[in-house]
C-alpha cells in the first residue's frame, strides 16, 4: 500500500499590479516544473483570477445591490447571501474539481485561498514514499520544523 507524505509547499502570491483586487501571479514556480505542465497550472490560476474578478466586479448590478442594502440599513446582509459568497462557492467547487481531475493524480493539492486569508494559493506537493526513495524539498520542511 502506498502512502504519501507532504514534501513541500509552494505559495503563489498575489499580483497587486492592478490594485487591491484579488488576483494571483501566474508565474510558474520552479518546484512544480517536474510535476505538472505549465499550461495546466496557468489555466487554473487564470480561471481563479477570473472568478475573483467576477466576484469583485463593480457595475450596474453591484450598485443596485449596494443601494438596496443601504436603504435597508444593511440588514439585508444578515438574510441574503451576497454575490461574493455565491462566487466563493463556485470557486470551491472548481478547486475541488481541479484537485480531483488534475492535481491529485500528479501528487499535488491546491488549498482554497480563502483558507489562507486570500493571500496565497497554497499548493502542497506530495511524495509517494512507497515508490520513490528520495524526497524533494525536505529542507523547507525541516526549515519549518526548526521554527
Amino acid at each position, binding site marked *: *500500500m*502506498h*502512502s*504519501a*507524505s*507532504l514534501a513541500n509547499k509552494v*505559495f503563489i502570491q498575489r499580483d*497587486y*499590479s492592478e*490594485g*487591491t483586487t484579488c488576483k494571483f501571479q501566474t508565474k510558474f514556480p520552479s518546484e512544480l516544473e517536474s510535476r505538472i505542465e505549465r499550461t495546466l497550472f496557468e489555466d487554473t490560476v487564470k480561471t481563479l483570477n477570473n472568478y475573483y474578478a467576477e466576484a*469583485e466586479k*463593480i457595475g450596474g448590478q*453591484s*450598485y443596485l*445591490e*449596494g*443601494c438596496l*442594502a*443601504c436603504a435597508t*440599513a*444593511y*440588514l439585508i*446582509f444578515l438574510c441574503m*447571501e*451576497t*454575490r*461574493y*459568497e455565491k462566487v*466563493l*462557492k463556485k470557486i*470551491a*467547487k472548481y*478547486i*475541488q474539481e481541479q*484537485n*480531483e481531475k488534475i492535481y*491529485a*493524480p500528479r*501528487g499535488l*493539492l491546491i*488549498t*482554497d485561498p*480563502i*483558507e*489562507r*486569508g486570500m*493571500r*496565497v494559493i*497554497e499548493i*502542497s506537493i*506530495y511524495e*509517494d514514499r512507497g*515508490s520513490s526513495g528520495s524526497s524533494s524539498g525536505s529542507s*523547507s*520542511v525541516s*526549515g*519549518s*520544523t526548526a*521554527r
Partner: protein
Amino acid sequence: MKNCEYQQIDPQALPTPTPTPPPHHGNDSDKKEEPKRPRRKWEVFPGKNRFYCEGRIIVARQSGVLPLTLGLILVTSGLFFIFDCPFLVKHLTSCIPVIGGVLFVFVVITLLQTSFTDPGILPRATPDEAADIEKQIDNTGNTSYRPPPRTKEVLINQQVVKLKYCFTCKMFRPPRTSHCSLCDNCVERFDHHCPWVGNCVGKRNYRFFYTFIVSLSFLTAFIFGCVTTHLALRAQGGKGLVFALQESPGSAVELVICFFSVWSILGLSGFHTYLVASNLTTNEDIKGSWSGKSGEDVTNPYSHKNIFINCCSVLCGPMPPSLIDRRGFLPTDDSAQTGGTDIEVPTLATKSEINVCTQGTKGLLESATLPPLLSTSCPQGKPQTAHTCPDSSPAVNSDPSPELSMGCGARHAASSQGDASPSRHTKACSKKSKRAALHIPNTAFDIPVSPTSPDAASFAPLH
C-alpha cells in the same frame, strides 16, 4: 499579549489523544459527547478581540467609548421623543416623530453594525507561509534584536508602492493594509481605529461607518432644529426663553448636546465624503501618502479618477467575506494527517459557507481513490506531519515569537506616547481633539520600526 487571552494549541502536548474521528456530529451536541469539546477558532483567535454569541459578534478588546456613544444617542433621542414631539405634533405636523424615528433606527442599526462587524481582519500567516517568506528575504542573521524592517516594492497602476512586512502577522501586508495595535490585527483597507464605535474601521465596515456618521449628522441636525423650533414656539408671546426652558427642561439638555455635537459630526461627515470621493483612507490622508508632499510625482493609484465611480466602488461595491473563520472548528490533534491542510475544519460546511471548499477537499483526501495521494495518517508522529497541524490553526503562529509580538506592542505604545505631536491632526478638520489624539498613534503604529531601528537602509527595497 497575555497568554490568558487565548490558548495555544500544541498538538504534541494534548493530554487525551483519543483516536476518535474528527467531530462530525458537530453542531449542538459537541458539548455532551466528547470528553474534550471541540473548540471553535474564535476561542483561540490571536488578536485582541472579544467575541460574543459564539463568535458571531466581534468587538475590539477595549470597547472604547461605545457605551457613551450609544448612551448619548439614546438619551438625546429619548428626550426628544418625550419632551419635544408631543408639542410639535400638536403645533406643527405629525411627520416629525416619524422622521425622527426612522433616523434614530438607522443610526442605531448602523452603529451596531460598525461595532460588531469584522472590519477586514487578515488572518496571520501559517508557519509554512511564514517560512516561505523568510526564505525569500535575505536574513542578515542578527537574531539578538529585531531584524531590520523589510519592505517590498510593487507597481500598482504605474505607481510604486512599498509593502511593509508585519512582524506580528509574519507576512507582507497587502497594499492599504495596516496593523492596528489596539486590536493587534492587520486590517485591510485600514481607515482608523474609532474609539466611539469601539472597533477598527476597515474594508468591510467602512460603508456602515459612513452611513452611521451621515445619518447621525442628519439626526443631530434634525433634533437641533426641532428643539430650537419648539423653544421658539414656546417663547412666543413675550414669555421668554427662560420660561420655555423651565417648561421643557429636557430640551435644554438636548440643545447642549446637539449644539456641541453637530459641528464635529457634520465636519466628520464632510471629511469622509471627501475621502470617499477620492478613494482615500484616513490613514493615507493623515500620512500624506498620495499628496506628493515629498516632491515626487505621486498619485493615488487606487482612485478611479471619477468621483461618482469612486463613491460607488467604496460604498456600493460588493461586500467582501470575512477572512477569519470565527465559527470554524479547530482541528483535533488526531487528524494529524499528512496532507491535512484542510482536514482542520471537519464539518464546517454545514455551518459556514466559506468552508464549503474544505469539506470537498477533506472528502477528496479521505476517499483514498487516488493511490499516489493516499492520506493514511501516520500516527507514529513523524516530525513533518506533526508540524502540518499547526498550519491550519492561525493561532499557533503567534506562539513561536511571543517576545517579538510583545515587543511590537510595547514599542507601539512607547512610540505613541512620543509621537503625540499635533502636526498632522490638523488635517482632520473638525474632529474632536480626543479622536484626533487617538488618531496620532495609528500613524506611529503604521511605521512599526522607524522609532526602533536607526539604520537608514531600513527602507531600502529588498526585491
